[in-house]
């Protein structure tokens, strides 16, 4: 009776297109990346196998090292500044009844927009002559500050834009976890006389730790992936002050045709992402079960 579901031709026809595309655009590029990463390929001549030279070069390359450092800044900023703020805002939103939906919808909004358009929008806000920020500074008699053109401000400007875009996304993630906590627990603590802040800190925060861990892991992965916003806002400048690993990799490959070296950098980024998230899992998030929504 169930022969219809045992038809191998139908099975293959339903699966093959997906597998073919998936293989062509995921598995094959992954294999080729590993291969190119160990060659000196420049896109024109025959690739020569050069062992791990590319990787040794990468760690000696001062420009790549400084771009790595910028990824570290992004990582630290997102984990040490953004995550605490995200938790606080989620708690505050969960504590209000009126307008809760409005707050949630609004803070989430930037994360559905294109990073490139956000880069343009914020580039305009940072504009030294007509931008919003310098307009505000002028009210206090300060400025003008060349946000994106001065080395000491450019990275911070990008960090703020990045936070502006993504914080709401994580707030909504954590908010969902907070709202899923059974009301009775909170009631019981209230009856026992715990204040709002006490309940938030001693009750809610421990209960949402698993999802906070997810947010931290996503932030780590996100910090290593940052590229669009840098390419759009500063192109890595001024003088490499905002260059990140991914933008450096893209430039090396596309602008200078150093495909071998570029893919080696891509592999380094991939390995960093794996190692950092795995290390975080093992050190901090080990015994937590996965969350399902």
């Amino acid at each position, binding site marked *: 009776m169930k022969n219809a579901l045992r038809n191998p031709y139908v099975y293959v026809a339903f699966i093959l297109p997906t597998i073919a595309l998936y293989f062509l655009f995921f598995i094959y590029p992954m294999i080729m990346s590993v291969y190119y990463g160990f060659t000196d390929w420049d896109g024109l001549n025959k690739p020569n196998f050069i062992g791990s030279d590319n990787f040794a070069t990468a760690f000696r390359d001062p420009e790549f090292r400084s771009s790595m450092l910028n990824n570290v800044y992004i990582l630290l900023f997102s984990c040490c500044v953004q995550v605490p703020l995200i938790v606080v805002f989620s708690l505050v939103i969960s504590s209000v009844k009126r307008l809760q939906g409005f707050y949630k919808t609004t803070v989430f*909004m930037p994360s559905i927009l294109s990073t490139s358009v956000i880069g343009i929008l914020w580039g305009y806000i940072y504009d030294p002559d007509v931008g919003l920020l310098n307009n505000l500074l002028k009210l206090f008699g300060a400025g003008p500050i060349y946000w994106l053109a001065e080395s000491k401000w450019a990275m911070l400007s990008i960090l703020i834009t990045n936070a502006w875009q993504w914080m709401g996304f994580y707030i909504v993630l954590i908010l969902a976890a907070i709202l899923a906590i059974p009301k009775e627990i909170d009631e019981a603590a209230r009856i026992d006389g715990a204040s709002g802040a006490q309940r938030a800190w001693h009750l809610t925060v421990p209960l949402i730790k698993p999802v906070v861990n997810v947010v931290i892991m996503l932030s780590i992965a996100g910090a290593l992936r940052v590229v669009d916003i840098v390419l759009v806002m500063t192109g890595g400048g001024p003088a490499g002050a905002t260059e990140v690993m991914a933008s450096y990799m893209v430039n090396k490959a596309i602008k200078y045709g150093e495909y071998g070296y570029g893919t080696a950098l891509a592999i380094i980024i991939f390995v960093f*992402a794996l190692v950092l998230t795995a290390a975080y899992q093992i050190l901090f998030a080990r015994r937590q079960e996965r969350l399902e929504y």
Partner: protein
Amino acid sequence: MPAAIKKTIPHVVLLAYVAVILVPFLFVLLSSFKANNVEIATRPFGLPKIWAFENYKEAWVKAKISVYFWNSLYLSLSSAVAGVLLAAATAFALTRMKFESASRWIYQFVLIGMLIPGNVLFIAQYLLVRNLGILNTHWSLFLPYTAGALPISVLLIAAFMRSIPGELEEAAIVDGLSAPGLFVRILLPLTLPALVTVFIVNFLGNWNEYLLANFFLNKDSLRTLPTGMVGFRDAFQTNYALICTGIVFSVVPVLVLYALLQKNIIEGLTAGSVKG
């Protein structure tokens, strides 16, 4: 502290946050209607003296925002539709057809894709589309966009299909429906909520994609909004009103979609990241 004040403090904090989100948009919206830079600089939050609607016409026609807009729209739509249909067909075969052990392997194999961050494959994909001879055509975006969405789409749709009880299908098979018929007439309609969510997530991802679009296409007439906008900004560097108009054009469709389908959008995007 009186209760009333205690109740307003959270709202003050949150409204400040909301203002930080919305003020940039307000600034851009007002600027887009202003006639010149002097007016933008001197009265950033004043209403425009004369509403310069012609900025919109100029950006749409002369600055070719219309071209970018339609490119973005049809590429995002077609690859999102293709991705959803392929993923749904695969999810159907994996969860419903009687090839359990093969299905288990294929499922795991596809999920590996979610471990690989997109940027890592960028160079290899660039070389791939170059070798396929489709660099500088819309195929060079359509194929990676469709493929890129597959792992997470298969995961979400398969999870949804597993939660649908099988009785209806059994009855349909007894009535003589074939597997493809079952898929089209029974499973697809039942899975519609999940398909809509996955479609929206894919559509937004494609609509916003920058990296591939920037490097795989360099003909201006093929560009999509995110890359076209950057070129537009670089070309009109000091015409702030026109740049703001361009921003409005690329942001509004997404905001309309968001206003209509915010629940699906939030659910889809967050589900993807937590499970992925």
